[in-house]
């Protein structure tokens, strides 16, 4: 329909947009993004293009501050973990899982309370996600989306550690839910790659086996079939 000027691309999802058209605009290169939420926009855009391409999703754009990159990635992980939490809600009750456990060795106490509490798994999951939301959005530690204080970057590790337990509980106690969710999102393997790459957690804690393990910094050809 263009005659002289091409119509400027307006990247909006206005009321009336069909689900299949949601976010279906031409991709915008990271350098062209001029909003304060550029990093989030870029990460989400890359995931939408191919959620299985862990490598591309985790590749930091040249010149981008790494602290902000890690922060925004973690926000996106917490956002997507909601999907797993919803599925768990249906099945994981205080009766089935009265504590937050993974393998027999580990019992996790919920840090969202004044003194750590042995919450049932579903409560642990919700409290951890809610607590992560509060911390990552806290004006005290993360007042800006474009620059992160070094002291705040240190907080990201503890968030990762707690949030990972949701994966491990789901894997060991609700395996079908874990598999279903993982196939839809590739979230756990992406998270594992992420924490290893940026040294946010010690490898000892990564108890969920990942299919394309170990050499995950290299190509993702192994993902096929």
């Amino acid at each position, binding site marked *: 329909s263009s005659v002289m000027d091409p119509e400027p691309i307006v*990247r909006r999802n206005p009321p009336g947009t069909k689900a299949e058209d949601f976010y279906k605009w031409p991709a915008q290169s990271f350098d062209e993004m001029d909003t304060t939420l550029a990093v989030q926009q870029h990460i989400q855009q890359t995931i939408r293009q191919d959620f299985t391409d862990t490598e591309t999703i985790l590749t930091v754009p040249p010149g981008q501050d790494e602290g902000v990159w890690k922060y925004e990635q973690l926000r*996106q992980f917490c*956002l997507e973990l909601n999907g797993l939490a*919803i599925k768990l809600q249906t099945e994981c009750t205080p009766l089935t899982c009265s504590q937050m456990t993974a393998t027999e060795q580990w019992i996790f106490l919920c840090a969202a309370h004044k003194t750590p509490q042995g919450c049932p798994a579903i*409560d642990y999951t919700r409290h951890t996600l*809610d607590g992560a939301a509060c911390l990552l959005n806290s004006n005290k530690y993360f007042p800006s989306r474009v620059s992160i204080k070094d002291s705040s970057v240190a907080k990201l590790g503890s968030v990762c550690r707690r949030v990972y337990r949701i994966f491990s509980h789901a894997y060991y106690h609700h395996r079908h839910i874990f598999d279903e969710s993982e196939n839809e999102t590739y979230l756990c393997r992406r998270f594992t790659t992420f924490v290893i790459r940026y040294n946010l957690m010690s490898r000892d804690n990564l108890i969920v086996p990942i299919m394309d393990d170990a050499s995950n910094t290299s190509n993702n050809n192994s993902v096929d079939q």
Partner: protein
Amino acid sequence: YSMPGILHFIQHEWSRFEMERAQWDVEKAELQARIAFLQGERKGQENLKRDLIRRIKMLEFALKQERAKVHKLKFGTDLSVEQKHNESNDESKTNELQTTNAHMSWRHGRQLLRQYLQEVGYSETILDVRSQRVRALLGNNYDAPKPVENDNQVVNGNISDEEKQSNTDGNTESIFKDFNFLNAEDNDNEDDEDVNMQDEDVTDDGDHQRKARAKVSSLFLLLRLYEEMALAEFDFLNPTAAEPGILLSMTDDMKLDWSVDQNKLNAMKEQFRQEKRQTKKKELKRKYPLSRPEVCPYNLLNVFHSESLPFTVGGTHMGDESIENALGLGALAGLTVANEADPLSYDIAATKESYRKTWNPKYTLRSHFDGIRAIRFLPNESAVITASEDHTMKLWNLNKPLPSKKTQSLDVEPIYSFRGHSGAVLSLEVDADGSYCFSGGLDASVRVWSIPSVEIDAYDTYDPAVIQKVLVGHTDAVWSLSYSSTRQQLLSASSDCSVRLWNPTSNDPLIQTYTTEGIPTSVCFVQCDSNHAVVSHTDGKINLYDLETGQISLVLAEGDGSKYIDCSVNCVASHPTMPITMTAHDDKHIKFFDNSSGKLIHSMVAHLDSVTSLSVDPNGLYLLSGSHDCSIRLWNLDSKTCIQELTSHRKKFDESIYSVAFHPSATYIASAGADALAKIFV
């Protein structure tokens, strides 16, 4: 007791109930008609009052003209006398210079004054207190001539604006307070004339004024200081204006003949506007009187014209102190009144009328990971629910903000997260008593939730009973919900081209499905007639549906889909008491339609970008609109003018503000944006 007897009794009771209900309906309709009639009457009264005020001003102006003529005739040689005085008395010369220049810079200086005061830290309340005192002191002075015509129009126009803005209670008292100021101002000038004409005795009013002036002299020192600073800014005046000779030509022509360098003046105005814009970004909230065409043409030059006239007429030789005081008082009086005349001034009318509200940001709600698509208040609590693209909704208690040292903007953390949607949550409604909320999502589901108490602990045990129901039926994103408390029913609009009516509490909730032509974007029950609902579409169509028949009873707007890319209507809102529908358009307009006739009542350019959301206050007096231009605007529904603009929210891609809301019973307004934040203003 026999069976037939019982049946008969029941039937009898039922028919009685039906009759009563019919009676109530009739009464309700009557009362509504009466309300409309009274409102119309009140408008008529206000118009009448305004006209009378204008007449009074015109008469007073005429009187003043007459007096001026008399003065001129009496003292034909007065001018040369003044000149001698000027040349002989250096000090008075400089004073005149200062005063005349200062009088002209008075307006500009006052603006600067306010700016400096704010920098210094004088809050508006201090100004208010001071002006209250001045008002009290000057309260009795009444019989002076009125200001000149220009001033009339200017002040008039703005008084009537002010009237409208000052809410429907149209306080006559405030109008006459304004008169007091005008009178006081002219009393000063008139008094100066008197002093000059040494034949006449200084009136008692003058004495009274002098005493009043003496009492507020500390302010004048401050004013003088700022005057001098302000004078330095007046390089747009050509140098000749500073000479005393100009006074002659002024008094000759009875007309202000400042040779003003228009270009510089405009440049300064531009600079001033830009400064204002910048300071706005630093979160100083100021009012922009938008879409008030009667005010905008009054540039600074006109204002200077009108206000310098009394001086030229009155002559120039007067005591040092009294000039300052006159000026000071005039300026001070002007702080509260003539302010309205200047569209560039900060609107501190709020400080002088206690019922006039300026909204300020109070709470920031941080916790969502992605844009917040909808925000609603709970009807009986200081609490809100937000619905976000991060698939969750959250409940927030505003009475429990995070502890903070600064009281200006408090952060709030949520006390509950509603998890259940497997995609972005796009729409939200709360029922009339705040026990249930309804959400519509990208996953095509409509969900009914039971709202937990606002007193719960944020990290409580999970209660699956919060999830009440999932209303299945739509096959695509549910973009809009509307709840009717009279019918206890819910309407949902989805991009599957249907609008559905539900009874959320029933076991078989779907009551009816209405297929729409075109994709609906927003649906709203007509508040004063819940048998009807308005639906807007992406192609600009706006239809009024009769819910009983399921048919379109009236087309408010035809679809223009083929013509424009920005024809979509994003939101419809229903007026609480009048049969009016308000619509928010992609083409930056807000339009008003009459539900009975289907006619377009009013259309206005409301924002710099697509208007995304509307909310009407529960009394039907104000309208709140949000837009992707990052601003929310508050409109007076009587005058259809913008009384406040607030900048809020940053952009994600090309979107910024998704939703705005009024609290149904308390003085809160909320905005929700693509930056994952929600803001509450008080």
